[in-house]
């Protein structure tokens, strides 16, 4: 368990306070939100280049970006889901009907298809934390 603390601490030291989370849509990186405004274990929704993107920061400090649309309900709510880990896989649970999605791949771990037959997979975007001053704090 000491690993957890070290790892969390490492990330926090590495990214500093003024670091900004950026998401790549197409070829371009877009700055979205200050890293330290993200609450560990929760998500936010962002509008990036016309896309609704759900951003999460997990307990280890890693940031994930997936589509905000829940393919099972069609509602744009995934940013409001709980984060969890299932067999070591970081997941978000849809707040609507509670399916789990792998945050790294967008793949739904509970069902392969939505009721209308489309694949139950979320789009995933590359994320980076742009840290202007690594020793910031």
């Amino acid at each position, binding site marked *: 368990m000491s690993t957890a603390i070290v790892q969390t601490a490492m990330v926090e030291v590495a990214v500093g306070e003024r670091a900004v989370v950026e998401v790549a849509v197409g070829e371009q990186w877009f700055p979205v939100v200050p890293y330290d405004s993200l609450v560990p274990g929760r998500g936010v929704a962002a*509008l990036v280049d016309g896309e609704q993107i759900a951003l999460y920061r997990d*307990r280890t400090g890693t940031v994930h970006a997936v589509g905000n649309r829940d393919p099972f309900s069609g509602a744009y709510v995934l940013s409001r889901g709980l984060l969890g*880990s299932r067999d070591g896989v970081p997941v978000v649970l849809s707040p609507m009907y509670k399916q789990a999605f792998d945050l790294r791949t967008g793949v739904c771990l509970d069902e392969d298809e939505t009721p209308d037959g489309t694949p139950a997979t979320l789009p995933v975007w590359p994320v980076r934390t742009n840290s202007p001053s690594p020793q910031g704090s």
Partner: protein
Amino acid sequence: MTHTQESSRKLVLIGHGMVGQRFLEAFAERGGHAPAWQITVLTEEPRPAYDRVHLTSWFSGTSADELSLWEPEFGDKHGIDLRLGDPATAVDRTARTVTSRSGEVFPYDALVLATGSYPFVPPVPGHDAPGCFVYRTIEDLEAIRAAADTARVGAVVGGGLLGLEAAGALRAMGLETHVVEFAPRLMALQVDDGGGAVLREKIQELGVTVHTGAGTQTVETTADGTVTGMVLSNGATVDTDLVVFSAGVRPRDQLARDCGLPVGERGGITVDANCRTEDPAVWAIGECALAVDGRVYGLVAPGYAMAETVAKQLTDEQGEFTGADLSTKLKLLGVDVASFGDAHGTTPDSLEVLYANSREGVYKKLVIGADGALLGGVLVGDTESYDLLRPLALSGAPLTAPPEQLVLPASIGAAPGPIALPDEAVVCSCHNVTKGAIRSAVADTGCTDVPAVKKCTRAGTGCGSCVKFLTTLVNDELAAQGVELSRGLCAHFDLTRAEIYEIVRVKGITTFARLIDEHGTPGSGLSEGCEICKPVVGSVLASLSPALGDGVSGHILDGEQAALQDTNDHFLANLQRNGSYSVVPRIPGGEVTPAGLITIGEIARDFGLYTKITGGQRIDMFGASVDQLPLIWRRLVDAGFESGHAYGKSLRTVKSCVGQTWCRYGVQDSVALAIELELRYRGLRAPHKLKSAVSGCARECAEARSKDFGVIATSSGWNLYVGGNGGMTPRHADLLLTDADHSTLLRTIDRFLMFYIRTADRLERTAPWIERMEDGLDHLRAVIVEDSLGICADLDALMSRHVSSYEDEWRATLDDPDRLARFVSFVNAPGTPDPTIRFVPERDQIRPADTFGETFVAGATLGVRSLV
């Protein structure tokens, strides 16, 4: 459709009872539906198939709709033409047509007769008087209830299974009840003399008068046909106002007789092992059929097996029905009764092992074969061992334990578990699943819990009576595989909710991080937790926050706690299907001023919200976006409203009737008490939601007995009921206090709630929590009324801290810019509403838009702006 009607084969089913419906389901499951088959169902009753096995529950409030086994979508989906109230009147086997009462003629390629049976009414004088009834259909029950309104005494003719059910119903309607049975004992088919004697004893204790060895000679009536009594064959007379005949059933085989199909000597349409009649195009199933083993089966399980048999053949599979096990286990008038296998010891050279305890009202008999194998038995008063004994008897395997050990009470001889069963023993008789198949599901297929085994083998998915036994079996097998069983919450905590509560309380833990690091399963320290453990810990921290002091914030949106809450708690509102939220202000006791109503109306109008009155006596406003929630609540809070906690696992409402203040019948001020209770327990976080109600008199208009805690006024105080439930598994609350004064009432509810919060499982409501306790209500009373565990002072202190530290979550949120910051649709574009939340008009209000083809209306007439 691309096919022609001519290409369909035509199936006619006559009779739509439980067996007929099961046949349709089994047939459709195997592809027996449109377009390949054109199915017509003719039925005499005015309603589709319903659960006749649980018919008696109609008297205790289960509606005809709830008993129904038919969903219109099922019929639509499979193209089934169901003709209610239009029974078949003739079958022409040469032309292959059926004529119905309305005169319509239906051609068939296959005909299935599921006409069931009719109650046998002995042809004694007076048997057809208006006060005489049978017990077969919902209409029969309606007639009995109507007659019972003006009756004082009721008599049931027939002391079998159904007769005792009918007696229970009469007794529950407040009638002085008699049972008249021709045989020398009750339930003559199932139990023996010893078991019948114990059963009779127990039933008489309930106030039912039992006459055995007595036939009905005459039903006596006045000149206008009103029933006044019965004369029995032993000369005795019974004064009674109504008579229910439940003296057995006879197969309804008239249609078959009329068209020349062979029937048995004592009735029943003769069928072969395929359930086929002499005519290869005609089948008969259920109670109207005389099976190949020479029996007419009056139980539903064999009927279902016959239905499956025919469904298989019609879809080109093999299917046979050669006989069925007549074992039964049931609860009659509160008495457990079971019989299985050769219950009457008819096997030559069989022996009996008996245990009888008339003080406890327990009787057990095992029939043992000459070779030492268990053949059958009778159990009355204690049927706990039925699940083990029945498969043991049916398997025919020799016993591995001495038989006397099998009948002794658990406290004396440790009863052997499922391990004593041979692999061939059938554990789930609905789906014919053996112990071996279940073991193999664990050992070979890799199922690791009961749900997986159910899915894999279908065991336990029929009547469900074997689930408890199945659980023991699966756990034993897992243990044998070396799998360690966890009672724990999830992969991250090998602890129950109650254990987590105690750890947090005793160690003063205030964060999820510390809890999972110190008490999580190995390796979970790094992880995020999951949807199971996070909200549980969030709820426990919130329940205990007044007691934990400064270490944990009382506000559920603060710090790390924010990450633990489910979406509804996180936004202090209830998520709806299109991503919008509902807003529910608290209206304590359902009492609201005209000014309050106007305020709610104005807010809903200004924000374009849909409004609806809830079942909990308050007003829901739907269609708010995340951005609008703080704006709506600012106005509500300013007008004196506060959070109704509709989103939380916490107290919802305390419903009330208008009470003594206005009502002519009220004996106490139920509104004042309801408001007091709602304000006292508002915001209390619990393992599940809590509902309550207060009724001002015994008429119970507030429906207090369907609540977790309900109060009913008496002329000298309050009666407290606990553990009620509405919804999917309704349960009437149990009486805990009688004529309590105000302070005793509050103190007892305080302790009840705190004890529940402390010891219940995750998402366990008070009803199953009480049922799970050993000794149930008695234990609860001992703990919270008599303080048997010495914890009442603790419970009282916890509640008093809750009451004194309550703060409205919405007011606290509005006062804090940090907490408000999350109420935006987009973190990088505050002020931009979510464009996907759209509404269309319906009945002068809004509803979520279903498709993009619909015309949208604006959600709000007020713009969205930030409050901070």
